[in-house]
């Protein structure tokens, strides 16, 4: 698009420059020549009148006429008198060089005439006058001067033409940029919307053509935003509505649990199923609410500085596997992270839950600093390694999707669905400006290694 606009402008300016130069040159040329003809006619007429006067008073010789012409500074002439030619001296003219049709027109027909002709090696105007009863007078005016003027006009026209082509090119660059700008802005806005900033809109424009684009773009963004927000609100509303019955369920189950001993065995088994699923249900509703808060952009982190190792130990202590071993490198022991304590604890808890469900027993946690001298920012990694079947490379991104159960058959062993746990891990870590991914265990044994990388500061101790 940009190239096409540029090309159009360039071709247009070349055509325009060419047209203007040619017409200007043509007009200047005919004008100059016409002027020269007019002045030649005037000058030669007065000279012819002088010649006629001299010849009439002295018909025998042309000498007095020649003297008079010489006094006037005229050289390039021919006088035809008594069937004889007399030429000025020195003269570029001689009778042979006179255009024959001009000569016959003047001498035989008795008319005045002029003609552009080449005399000797010069181009010029030959004007002929019939001097009544005594002969004829011809004078030559060269066009050197006009030619010089024309050549300088030619030069300036070529220069002006080049300048206007250059201007046309620059104008084309400018126009192309301007024409493409709304498209670039729209593209930027579109990618901003795709990146989650749903309230992005284009500025309305005065240009009627652009207004169609901006208005329909903004309508689309509006519809999209409403739709996304409605979906997010729906999930949030559903979860909110579920809270009240869940509250009743949780309280009632607790009453029954307190009376478990009084129940028959089969009722006890049913109660155990009921109470464990009420807990699961509760967790799911919490997760749904949390993720719909992410979708609504309503998450605000309560950031504080945390000693990473201490924080992980505390988080593990309240997780579902409080005895999970934690290995902390010497450097990482004194590292500070900036984070939302309760949300990051959820991240650790969810990773431990995931390892418990799919990872074949107790996982191990290691905390290390990332050694990258190229990176100006220090990073810390918290890795949760399990002993499950691992995750095949092509499914490693999928596990962080919502309600994605681990794909490989081996990972379906857990009775609990993965639900939103890892999706929340992903959202939380990204909210903290970090990354999370899953890889193979570095020791080559089977198992998955979930790694969280966060910015960290090292305490000088």
């Amino acid at each position, binding site marked *: 698009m940009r190239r096409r606009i540029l090309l159009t402008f360039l071709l247009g300016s070349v055509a325009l420059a060419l047209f203007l130069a040619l017409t200007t040159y043509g007009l200047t040329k005919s004008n100059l020549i016409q002027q020269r003809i007019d002045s030649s006619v005037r000058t030669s007429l007065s000279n012819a009148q002088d010649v006629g006067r001299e010849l009439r008073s002295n018909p025998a010789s042309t000498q007095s006429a020649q003297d008079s012409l010489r006094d006037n500074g005229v050289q390039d002439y021919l006088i035809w008198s008594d069937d004889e030619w007399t030429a000025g001296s020195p003269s570029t003219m001689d009778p042979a060089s006179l255009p024959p049709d001009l000569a016959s027109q003047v001498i035989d027909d008795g008319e005045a005439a002029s003609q552009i002709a080449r005399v000797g090696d010069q181009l010029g105007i030959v004007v002929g006058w019939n001097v009544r009863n005594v002969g004829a007078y011809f004078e030559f005016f060269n066009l050197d001067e006009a030619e010089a003027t024309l050549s300088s006009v030619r030069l300036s026209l070529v220069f002006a033409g080049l300048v206007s082509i250059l201007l046309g090119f620059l104008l084309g660059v400018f126009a192309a940029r301007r024409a493409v700008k709304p498209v670039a802005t729209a593209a930027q806005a579109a990618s901003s919307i795709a990146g989650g900033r749903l309230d992005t809109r284009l500025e309305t424009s005065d240009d009627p053509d652009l207004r169609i684009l901006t208005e329909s773009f903004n309508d689309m963004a509006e519809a999209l935003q409403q739709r996304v927000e409605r979906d997010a609100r729906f999930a949030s509303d559903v979860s909110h509505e579920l809270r009240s019955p869940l*509250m009743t*369920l949780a309280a009632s189950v607790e009453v029954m649990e307190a009376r478990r001993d009084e129940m028959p065995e089969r009722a006890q088994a049913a109660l155990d199923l009921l109470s464990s699923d009420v807990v699961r249900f509760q967790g799911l509703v919490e997760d749904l609410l949390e993720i719909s808060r992410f979708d609504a952009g309503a998450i605000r982190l309560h950031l504080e500085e945390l000693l990473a190792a201490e924080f992980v130990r505390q988080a593990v202590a309240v997780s579902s596997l409080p005895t999970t071993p934690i290995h902390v490198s010497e450097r990482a022991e004194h590292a500070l992270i900036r984070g939302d304590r309760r949300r990051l604890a959820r991240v650790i808890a969810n990773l431990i839950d995931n390892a418990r469900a799919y990872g074949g027993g107790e996982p191990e946690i290691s905390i290390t600093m990332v050694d990258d001298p190229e990176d100006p920012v220090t990073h810390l990694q918290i890795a949760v390694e399990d002993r499950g079947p691992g995750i095949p490379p092509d499914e490693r991104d999928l596990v962080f999707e919502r309600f994605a159960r681990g794909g490989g058959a081996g990972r379906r062993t857990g009775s609990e669905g993965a639900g939103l746990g890892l999706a929340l891990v992903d959202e939380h870590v990204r909210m903290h400006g970090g990354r999370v991914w899953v890889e193979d265990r570095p020791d080559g044994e089977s198992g998955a290694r979930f790694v969280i990388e966060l910015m960290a500061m090292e305490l000088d101790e």
Partner: protein
Amino acid sequence: MGHHGGVGTRILAVEDDERIRSAVKLALEEEGWIVDEAESGEAAIELFHRTPPDVVLIDIMLPGMDGFELCRTLRRTSDVPVVMVTARNDTHDVVAGLEAGADDYLTKPFAPKELSARIRALLRRIRPSINGQHQRLSFGDLELIPDEGKVLRDGTELHLTKTEFRLLCELAESPGKVLSREALLDKVWGYDYFGDGRLVDVHVRRLRTKVEADPANPRHVVTVRGLGYRLQT
């Protein structure tokens, strides 16, 4: 009589959803508490005066007078411990509930066991004395008598809630020393490392409006940025 609750400890549960109210009452009674129910703020106030409870549990979303308003009304005449029940744990509801005078909060759906634990923490008696009997501690114009639960400023008695008083006592136990939010959460509310620091911040703010001559420029309860709070003369 159950095995967890205090002897004859009376809880007033204010909740408009009848099924939740019944289930929570059942569960709390199972824990050994005596439970009175109210379905609205207005009914709660009436019952509160007729049979004064030891703890009030208030759902924020009540028809008519809402939970914040009810809490403010009770606070005008009473320092009874109040636990708020919020639907969301977002900043607005929690902080507004604490500002209204609540001592602690829970997010729905909570386990009644958790509620019992919170109530027990709030009712925990202040240690008989900080160091010896009927001690009087002075901090400039402030005077603290832990055993009598009294705080005086320039000789005038101040009305502090139980939680505010406990917070002040914990700070007074090690004057001049900084106590972190986590430490205060543990000592005053019985929370672990993952307790909500906003509990401390809002209570410190409320405490300052009572003990400080100029709460905007606190001289006694001082914030130490990034670390916590400190009591000084």
